[in-house]
């Protein structure tokens, strides 16, 4: 029986829930982890749920979302059709799939698998029991509960999620695909917690998908902590494709060791409210991070990208490029904040946000902040908001290309700066196809997995007679 059924989310309700089920929530915790949970609960009570009076929440009002009635489950739901999860594979790409259904790890027979080369992956709640020392060393070290109420809420309540550990010197032979599917007959509120640890010189490609299968409303509060050791390499992809009543709050806390190399791509295709809270800390010198985002929103959807990059060590490089196309009454928020601390000499930080508004009802708030306490740096930021280049449009039209095709071509070219950065060719092909579908308004969430709507065998085609150009 659900402890909360069809009820709105309020601080008091969550406090009561915690106090009534304290035992159950920390049933797989060690003493140390349980302590972290208690502290997070205290932080949550102090902070309260965020409202628009907070600077970082000024443009995103959670009230409407929170007031919808949700079910909250303290136990995994019966898995009706596990095959759904595995439909999300990418054609011609061999991946290791880790499935999550409504925030719970699905494969019950092998909750945690340990591969021959020392790679561990599987359910976080099992990993807490099986590898307590390993989990304790990292859990809660990157996510700061006192800074963010929803992270505190997650730390206080999260029961399961995914744990991935790549030991030092090991490169994961296959990309790992983490699929979180939301599928339930009622509106659901879920919180899951992922912990990803890469040892020194370790390498991983991680494709992280958030998908929904039906039209039920959902509210997901997902926190992921990523630790990268010295010289580690992570190629990270986040694909978000949810229905229009879904709200997804995704906080990812990256911690990069010395000379670590991160490339992270956020592709937000659909979703009622998506808030990406990306917090990156350089925890050693010579780190290198590329953060790339593409958001394509329409109807009354809202996308909110909050990116904080902390250059706490010298000679690190960060590059942020976020681009978006907003149609109909969509709303976009970009809040980038680069902090260069006193001793972080030779920092190179770039920040770019570009937006295209297609209608007079779409809105964008762009806040690219720089906070710099050192003179030996190279920092820049840029933000543009506009429409499709009229001269480029004229050029194409002049050559006999229909307005619709020309518009598509230009929008696709705009998006391609981000899509083109995807390093896995099969995945790039797949995303190109999805972006194209999305721009043509064909990509909808359907009974089937959206990722399965097509199998692109050929590269993208626009109906353009190339001879005319």
């Amino acid at each position: 029986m659900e402890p909360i059924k069809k009820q709105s989310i309020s601080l008091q309700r969550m406090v009561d829930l915690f106090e009534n089920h304290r035992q159950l929530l920390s049933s797989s915790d060690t003493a140390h982890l349980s302590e972290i949970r208690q502290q997070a609960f205290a932080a949550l009570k102090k902070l309260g749920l965020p409202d628009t009076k907070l600077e970082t929440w000024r443009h995103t009002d959670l009230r409407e979302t929170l007031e919808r009635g949700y079910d909250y489950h303290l136990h995994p739901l019966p898995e009706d059709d596990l095959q759904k999860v595995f439909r999300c594979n990418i054609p011609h790409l061999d991946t290791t799939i880790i499935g999550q259904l409504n925030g719970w790890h699905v494969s019950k027979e092998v909750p945690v698998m340990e591969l021959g080369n020392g790679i561990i992956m599987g359910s976080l709640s099992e990993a807490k029991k099986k590898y307590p020392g390993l989990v304790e060393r990292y859990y809660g070290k990157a996510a700061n509960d006192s800074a963010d109420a929803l992270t505190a809420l997650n730390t206080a309540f999260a029961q399961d999620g995914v744990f991935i550990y790549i030991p030092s010197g090991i490169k994961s032979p296959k990309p790992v695909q983490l699929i979180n599917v939301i599928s339930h007959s009622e509106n659901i509120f879920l919180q899951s917690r992922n912990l990803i640890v890469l040892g020194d010189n370790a390498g991983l490609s991680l494709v992280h998908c958030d998908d929904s299968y039906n039209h039920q409303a959902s509210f997901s509060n997902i926190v992921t902590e990523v630790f990268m050791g010295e010289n580690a390499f992570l190629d990270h992809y986040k694909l978000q494709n949810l229905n229009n009543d879904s709200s997804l709050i995704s906080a990812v806390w990256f911690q990069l060791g010395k000379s670590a190399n991160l490339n992270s791509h956020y592709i937000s295709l659909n979703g009622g409210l998506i808030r990406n809270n990306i917090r990156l800390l350089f925890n050693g010198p010579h780190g290198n991070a590329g953060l790339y985002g593409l958001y394509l929103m329409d109807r009354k959807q809202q996308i909110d990208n909050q990116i904080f990059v902390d250059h706490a060590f010298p000679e690190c490089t960060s590059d942020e490029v976020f681009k978006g196309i907003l149609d109909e009454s969509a709303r976009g928020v970009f809040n980038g904040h680069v902090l260069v601390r006193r001793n972080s000499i030779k920092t190179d930080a770039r920040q770019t946000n570009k937006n295209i508004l297609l209608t007079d009802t779409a809105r964008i708030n762009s806040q690219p902040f720089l906070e710099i306490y050192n003179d030996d740096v190279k920092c820049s930021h840029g933000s543009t908001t506009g429409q499709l280049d009229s001269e480029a449009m004229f050029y194409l039209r002049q050559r006999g290309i229909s307005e619709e095709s020309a518009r598509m071509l230009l929008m696709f070219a705009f998006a391609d700066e981000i899509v083109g950065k995807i390093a896995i060719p099969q995945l790039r092909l797949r995303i190109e196809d999805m972006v194209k579908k999305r721009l043509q308004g064909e990509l909808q969430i359907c009974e089937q997995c959206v990722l399965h709507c097509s199998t692109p065998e050929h590269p993208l085609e626009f109906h353009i007679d190339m001879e005319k150009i």
Partner: protein
Amino acid sequence: METDSNKIIDEVTQGEYKYGFVTDIETEFAPRGLNEDTIRYISERKNEPEFMLEFRLKAFRHWLTMKQPVWAHLSIPPIDFQDIIYYAAPKKKTTVGSLDEVDPELLATFNKLGISLEEQKKLSGVAVDAVIDSVSVKTTFSETLSKYGIIFCSFSDAVQNHPDLIKQYMGSVVPYTDNFFAALNSAVFSDGSFCYIPKGVRCPVELSTYFRINAANTGQFERTLIIADEGAYVSYMEGCTAPQRDENQLHAAIVEIVVRKDAEVKYSTVQNWYPGDKNGKGGIYNFVTKRGICKGNHSKISWTQVETGSAITWKYPSCILLGDHSVGEFYSVAVTNNHQQADTGSKMLHLGKNTRSTIISKGISAGKSNNSYRGLVRISKNATHSRNYSQCDSLLLGPSCGAHTFPYIQAENKSSVVEHEATTSKISEDQLFYCQQRGIDMESAIGLIVNGYAKEVLKQLPMEFAVEAQKLLSISLEGSVW
């Protein structure tokens, strides 16, 4: 190189603020502290009509409900608003007919500041309104200007002689509810300048106000109101200095500009309040609300500011672009050194169609100072085909200073274009090397590069100011690199 740099830093930090003297003028004060009696006292001293007192009291009552804002990137020591004298006026005559009647001490003060009222009148053809502490002491050129129908006088005179205009426009751009310091100013403001340019008149001379804080323990609260009627044009300049004192003094001013159809106002400021000593002791806290409204179509407001002084600067000259095809411009050079803090920038609110705005902001920080640009560009739904271009660069001189950029961009329609770009860096070693290689010593080279960096803004200043500003820039920064 290392010893050179230390020497240069020493020279700069020991360089004196040359306007730091105090003039011994007999001054009358309001009692210390702030309550309704203080406000009644000020209003009574100034012999104000009833509506002014009411406006002040309303503002004061509203101010009591407000809290000092904390959002700026500044660390502001607590200000005891009851420990300030809200009204200080040089004694002697209250009305001055000609320069001969002005207190000779006062004239000497302005001569020492390099603003000889007499000379200015004869040579440069600039009309000056000189405000010392709370009171406007002398406005030159008024008679000549009145031939054109231009009203240029102190705010108090305007209250006496043109109450209708004051009633109509005062608080119409910056209402007393606007913010904490605007409410405070509205309650206790003492004087300031008033300027009205009638329809179709192009003001033949540059108008200028000179603000000077002299008395100790006082705050200065002046208020400027400029109205340009249809087709009018005026270029307005403002300068400020204060004596060197150990305690901090508060300056909270309001500037309101109303521009009607086809009119243009160009407002230039060289702000050189005492910045405090090299340990951050003393200096002026400068909390200023400056805002203009382009009411009619094809109107234009241009703000140019050179900020070198003040211990703390909190200032965001803004434009409300209400009329179609109206234009807003903001050019700024903000220099901070030692322990100075500045949080300054601009707001451009696009409401009319085809409105255009430009923001060019150049921040230079040295020593242990922090210099922030904070700006808002808002394109509302109806402001179709609007255009904004913002560029805010920061130059960092030395390893202990900070330069920050906080732009807020909101776009709400599909036909407008908003562009923002910013870079932060130190002086390029290549440029320095190039200059030095050609026999230019380092200090001059830095001066040259900084001047070149600020050129885009300085060239916007009226000639009289540009010279002063360039000198100021080199004094404030002289070789403070490394």
